[in-house]
């Protein structure tokens, strides 16, 4: 599993690569079939599986979030907006590539810096400040390395 942070202009991309020991078709079903998504995500979305179709997710807080499917190339590419009403420019893309071991899953969460700021503002950073600082002091070199490698 690798994680990178890329920045291009005002856009930030979080990119995850993961090798899954399962065929591409099996992974595709797990990320596009509502019952299968329910089994690992913990909520059952309503999905109108076509480009431009709605991806409606329900959250524990009672929020009903309507997103839109942007790319659909079974069984390789699935992309949808992410909390469109809050982050209009955010996009989540799953790319599935067949490899000898099964599937290489590349997940990209792309957003603008403004989306990131909105997200940070909507989270409640009310944890213990000393815990936060110690975590940060330990974490920043890793983050800097990730940022460094991405420019």
């Amino acid at each position, binding site marked *: 599993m690798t994680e990178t942070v890329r920045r291009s202009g005002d856009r930030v991309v979080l990119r995850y690569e993961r090798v899954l*020991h399962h065929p591409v078709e099996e992974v595709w079903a797990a990320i596009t079939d509502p019952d299968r998504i329910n089994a690992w995500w913990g909520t059952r979305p309503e999905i109108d599986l076509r480009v431009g179709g709605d991806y409606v997710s329900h959250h524990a807080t009672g929020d009903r979030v309507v997103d839109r499917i942007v790319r659909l190339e079974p069984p390789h590419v699935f992309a949808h907006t992410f909390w469109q009403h809050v982050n209009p420019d955010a996009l989540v893309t799953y790319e599935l590539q067949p490899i000898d071991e099964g599937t290489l899953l590349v997940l990209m969460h792309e957003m603008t810096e403004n989306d990131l700021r909105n997200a940070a503002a909507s989270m409640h950073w009310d944890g213990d400040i000393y815990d936060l600082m110690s975590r940060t002091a330990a974490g*920043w070199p890793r983050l800097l390395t990730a940022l460094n490698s991405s420019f």
Partner: protein
Amino acid sequence: MDAFTVVADPTRRRILEELRGRERTVGELVGALGVNQPTVSKHLRVLRDARLVSSAVDAQRRRYRIDADGFREIEEWVDAFRRLWATRLDALEAHLDRRSR
């Protein structure tokens, strides 16, 4: 300038790398980076304004060091999303493994 923009500059990233784990004077940074002193001072000012670097005077020499405060801004933004997806992908993988057993 926000922390993302500040860190985006390659010279400033090199200064931050130089300051990892040790304090440095302007003169030492000039020597290590091979960049002239006014340029290093200009970048240090930007880094200080963003609270990525702090300084203290010791024996009449000003020494610069990493300041974690500015990095917290970047870390908080990114880490929340990083953990979100890392956790979800763990769950997806476990789900697939369970089904294939």
